[in-house]
């Protein structure tokens, strides 16, 4: 009576194992696609590039009530999972050894995105559902950054593995560098710079930064950027290009953005935003977080977001790491004396590369006269570096908000009708599911964050 039953219950639709190339390609595209949508819909609100005029609880800082994006926890973990499968295959099967370095880089990258947003998160016990660990403990952010299997160590290990790799198997599925491991090493070093700077308020990172800077093997030119291009049509398009027009037209320019860009007379204003409906030369922003029920906004008086996010979405790239971002971090490090370098050189390079990245011609006098002129002796030098970095950081995940939390720049505005007692949030709340599905561990983590408060700073921000 049991004849053929095993055969009948064998799933012929889907394989029971997967080639690492197929998983790796999925991780690189899916993470980027999801995070770019997060960036437009949520990150750009917290970073005050955009403001939202209705259905805007998130923009009013009720971070547990996002409209669409604003809950990146699930997709980060799902991609960490697939990436971990690639990593384990690269360790256990010599044929796949080429994946070890890149998978470690992606592990570090996605983990940092997670912990920078939430603080302490499940890490060492995470992703082990198939080993029957169903309620993973939360690890301290400090350990996630600095532990033996932490972000920084994994980036070092990645570089070691890639440097040592002598095999002939190509890194297949790599939509970022088309299998060029030398570029992956540069990517890893740029990430080391970024994450060392992230924790530089808590840890002395000078020596490490200096060593990386001296070696110079990081993403120094836009040609080596870790990016992939969106396409014009589904399914590899930037998601906003095909969403309903309403989900696009409820987003308008933030007053913060208007002031910053106008202050520099920055031509990227007309890239990121459109003129108001009535006047083709007028760009107007609105202070974030209006209460739509008492203060209806007449859209035609404000600037919608630019054609690059809608009609010309095929010009967008997803940005894992870039030369300008690296150089802005180095400029900051130099300015703070963490590395020995001329901050202005790095700053000027970063600003120039930022224009280049967005395909906008930098006005000839941009860096030589006017407010973008760098003066290392000015008390506002750091503010200038971070504010200038803020401009190209548009659509870079939650990066602008994270850097605002770390540095206090640029000067973001209190939202109009705050649902967070007027405080600027400094972390994302753990999703509600954690409180029911991972109860005991969640409780400990919630206690450590004053009942999962969005006003409790993460470790590196303390």
């Amino acid at each position, binding site marked *: 009576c049991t004849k053929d039953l095993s055969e009948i219950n064998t799933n012929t639709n889907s394989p029971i194992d997967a080639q690492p190339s197929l998983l790796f*390609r999925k991780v690189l595209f899916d993470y980027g696609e999801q995070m770019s949508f997060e960036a437009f819909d949520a990150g750009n609100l917290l970073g005050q590039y955009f403001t939202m005029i209705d259905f805007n609880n998130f923009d009013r800082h009720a971070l547990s009530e996002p409209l669409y994006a604003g809950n990146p926890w699930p997709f980060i973990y799902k991609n960490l999972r697939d990436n971990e499968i690639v990593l384990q295959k690269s360790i256990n099967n010599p044929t796949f050894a080429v994946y070890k370095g890149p998978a470690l880089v992606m592990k570090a990258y996605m983990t940092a995105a997670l912990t920078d947003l939430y603080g302490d998160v499940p890490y060492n016990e995470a992703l082990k559902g198939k080993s029957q660990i169903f309620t993973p403990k939360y690890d301290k952010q400090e350990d996630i950054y600095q532990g033996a299997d932490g972000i920084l160590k994994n980036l070092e290990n990645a570089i070691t593995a890639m440097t040592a790799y002598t095999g002939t198997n190509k890194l297949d599925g790599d939509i970022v560098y088309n299998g060029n491991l030398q570029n992956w090493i540069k990517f890893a070093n740029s990430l080391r710079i970024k994450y060392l700077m992230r924790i530089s308020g808590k840890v002395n990172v000078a020596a490490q930064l200096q060593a990386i800077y001296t070696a110079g093997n990081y993403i120094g030119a836009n040609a080596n950027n870790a990016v992939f291009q969106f396409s014009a049509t589904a399914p590899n398009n930037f998601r906003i290009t095909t969403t309903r027009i309403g989900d696009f037209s409820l987003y308008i320019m933030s007053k913060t953005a208007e002031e910053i860009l106008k202050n520099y007379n920055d031509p990227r204003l007309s890239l990121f935003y459109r003129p108001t409906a009535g006047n083709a030369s007028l760009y107007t922003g609105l202070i974030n977080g209006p209460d739509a029920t008492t203060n209806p906004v007449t859209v035609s008086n404000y600037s919608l977001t630019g054609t690059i996010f809608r009609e010309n979405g095929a010009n967008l790239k997803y940005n894992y790491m870039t030369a300008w971002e690296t150089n802005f971090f180095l400029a900051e490090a130099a300015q703070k004396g963490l590395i020995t370098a001329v901050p202005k050189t790095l700053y000027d390079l970063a600003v120039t590369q930022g224009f280049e990245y967005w395909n906008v011609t930098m006005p000839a006098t941009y860096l030589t006269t006017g407010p973008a002129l760098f003066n290392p002796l000015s008390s506002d030098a750091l503010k200038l570096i971070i504010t200038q970095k803020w401009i190209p950081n548009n659509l870079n995940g939650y990066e602008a908000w994270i850097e605002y939390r770390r540095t206090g720049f640029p000067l973001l505005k209190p939202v109009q009708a705050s649902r967070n007692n007027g405080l600027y949030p400094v972390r994302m709340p753990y999703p509600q599911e954690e409180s029911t599905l991972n109860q005991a561990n969640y409780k400990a983590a919630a206690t450590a964050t004053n009942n999962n408060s969005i006003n409790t700073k993460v470790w590196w921000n303390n």
Partner: protein
Amino acid sequence: TVIDQVTGKKIIGVSIKEKNQPNNGTASNADGVFGLNVSSANAVLIFSYIGYNTREVALNGKTNLQVSLNPGLLLNETVVTALGVERESKSLGYNVQQIQAKEISEVKSVNFLDNITAKVAGVTITQGASGVGSTSKIVIRGESSFANNNPLFVVDGTPVNNIDIVPRYVEAPSSFQAIDFGNGAMDINPDDIASVSVLKGAAAAALYGSRAANGVILINTKDGSNSKGFGVSFNSTTSIESPFKLPEFQNTYGQGNGGQFAFKDGLGGGVNDVLTYSYGPKLDQGTLIAQYDSPVTLPDGRVVRGGDVGVYSNIPITPTPFISHPDNLKDFYETGKTFINNLSFSGKYDKGNYRLSYTDLNSQSFIPGVDYLRKNLSANLSFQPTSKLSAKSTIIYQNAKSNNRPSSGYGSENLQYGLLAWLPRSLDIEPLKNYWQTGLEGLRNYSYNYTYFDNPYFILKENRNELNRDRIFGNIALKYDLAPHLFVQLRSGMDYSNEGRRLLRNYSTNRFKNGAYAEQNVFYREINTDALINYTRKINNFGFDLSLGGNQLTQDFKSNQTQTSALAQPALFTLANAATPLEIFTFASRKRINSTYGSAKFSFKNYLFVDVTGRNDWSSALATPLSTKNTSFFYPSVSGSFVLSEITKLPKGISFLKLRASYAQIGNDTDPYQTAGAFVPATPYNSAPTLTDQNIIANPNLKPEQTKSAEFGTDIRFFGDRLGIDATYYNSLTENQILSLPVSISTGYAQRVTNGGAVRSKGVELILTGTPILSKNFRWNSTVNFSTNTSTVESLPDGAKQLTLAYARVYDSPAQTVYYIATEGGKIGDLWGTGYLKNSDGKFIVDASGNLITDNTLKKLGNYNPDFMMGFSNSFKYKQFDFGFLFDWRKGGILVSRTLALAGVAGQLKETEYRPTDGLAFDGVVNTGTSTNPVYITNTKKISAESYYRQFYDRNNEENNTYDDSYLKLRQFNLGYTFDKAALSKTFLKDVQSIKVSFVGKNVFAISKIPHFDPEQLALQGNKFLNGTEDMSYPSARSFGLSLGINF
């Protein structure tokens, strides 16, 4: 001769069969006379006729009989039980409730399940929410499984599917929305049904296998055994439908916000024209305002409409009067029409009988263009070539079609989104009928707003969801008598369906700028083959009946969906016209269950009956690629019936008393492929494929689930069977359930498949049957069905504190979600959601600015299951007139309404009409103390009416959008007149046996606390059909019709 015991009148058309010779039968003629050649002089004849108690009469050598039938109650009839065996109901140790053909076909519904509603105690049927052709959900004795509560449907002994396969969709506000293409059992044709038996408990069903754990709906189709020679019958029903209930709107304020509005481009270019709230200026004040249908004069002199934004810019719109349109939604709907025509031929000859039937159903919904068309051809053939061999076959072919199944759920694909939730009260709907923008015909639809909305007429005509389903089901059975008491039976049945669906979206659809197109094919085939050997004997007072059988079930399922999210050429719906790479989703599965089973029935005299059954299944779904050790499971049952009234003298008045009890275990398997993991395709990049691990952790150690069920009942009749009470108590425990338990995504996975949990269901069913009046010319029959059920979660697997069984959400927002959560000690049907912060007295806590405070803690909103349900049906017969009605009372249970949340926030509903200029204050308190030491005083701070209503009904909180879902409904009525042979013989219709005309009504009215829609609601979310949430549902139908039945 057959006569009526009360009136003495001759009865025409009584079915007379020889016992144990099912193909030897006849019927009484117009004079009540019959003749039948019987196999022996001591044969037993069975007399049955609708409306009379079935009677068995032993010939004992007599050749001339006068038989009187008791028109009392229907309780002593034979009922069809497992394996198609007809048994006297008094011998059953469990409850089986039977419905006759007349009750099913008197007032026909398009979905077969709706014909059973309120007629059977303990059976809950909820009609779907997207018009004709929707799924109706059936649950028997409450939900006790975390995964599957679908009963098994059996037609003439062969299972037929009741699956509902929803096309792939995404909950995010992009791509296709969910579409309900109906449930499998909806296509059973009422005109072909002879009887429906509902086996409610596990005991009745042990012999059908696992799927019977949730009860069995056993359908017997009509055959030719009752015809006298050749007979023709024609039945026709024509009915008209209108919306059962439309929302109560406010008609004082028009579109806009803060009292201001002017249309410019429907995208925010004008004054508050970015969305379509109705918080605008007062209506009917003589105000002139630019609107979407106001004229615009182009420089060349042509006049276009304000909404023709594609052909002009920066030209002022000429304002027009801002007036109310109270009937703008009502005017959208048309009068629906349903025509059901059935023609059947039946006949009998010495070696068998036959019945052929053709039914054409054409239902045009009141939603313009939405329809359901079904053709149904069925053949029942019976052939007895020798006295030992008989063959029987039922074959049913049908084709179901729909030109449009409207999309469900919250979003612009659902008509109700733009027509109800966001339909400005100032909107004149008439201009929308011309749904293309002037000069951009075929390219851009013309609408009152362009942010999220499509013109509803455009959706109906251009964005249809088509269906075309071919289905064949039926079986062939051979029976051979090996010896006088021994027979073997071989039977094979199949249910095959192949369904093609097309999802059409034209250019300028909000979700698909350049249109979209999807094709889905759903293939399903189930083959059941069984062999049975039976030995029946009666020795002195002892009777026994032993059966031994085997069954093999093989199920194949395939679904292919291919889609593109842009078309190259507008309005050309082919895959070759795709402007983007095709996305392909395929799934195929196969499942097999091999079984052996046995049953033994014992009887002593005519008062003690005991049944014992046992079955062993081997299910492929529990096999792993390497092992079959968990595939086998055995389940037994025992039941008994004791007819007390046969052995003792009972008090006067009690004419019959029976006690019954049963105990059964039933095992269950699961869906295929739960025992091994898999990688599934994800979005390709530049056409290069990708894979991702599935989000569910498979479990190679799955064991079968187990249900244990006990049932006690009694059947008491009084006053010569004029009054009967049938009472049942049941208590069942479903343990070790196979379920997908949600786990924290930080484990890398969203769910894991596991065994565990226990749900106990307890309930009472009462069926009260009476014939209050019975005289020569007038007869009144009345039945009350009462049932109550509670399903309590006794434990959850692995100490999980709670388990989310389902959810209903707006888009894919976790904050806008009704959670269907099982907690230890909680009840199945508990709904959880969020509300605003309240103090311990249940008062809203209002902040200093007069606003409510969000409370993100999930709280229990209530339970959607009713405290009890009651059906009250009555039929009256006066001479040639008959009249009947059916009331349906549901008490208790809650319903969360999306219509209230969305149309409330948007300011369309009556509830939002009161808008004093100085604002409104929430009925709540303000904390003037500290957070640890609160001091509450009554809130007096007023906020604008717009702020007030938009907060109160906000979709992020479910608590304020919850209704008590009790109702009392007049489910149906019928009034008919029959012209019998006697009346017709004097006319040109003298060859006609009878003609009946009736006036019928369905879903006539309801008393409920819900002002805006039918309290009966079913939502489609996450591929599940859910009670307890109203999700922007379409109105249900009220229908009135005329029907005509002619028998030749």
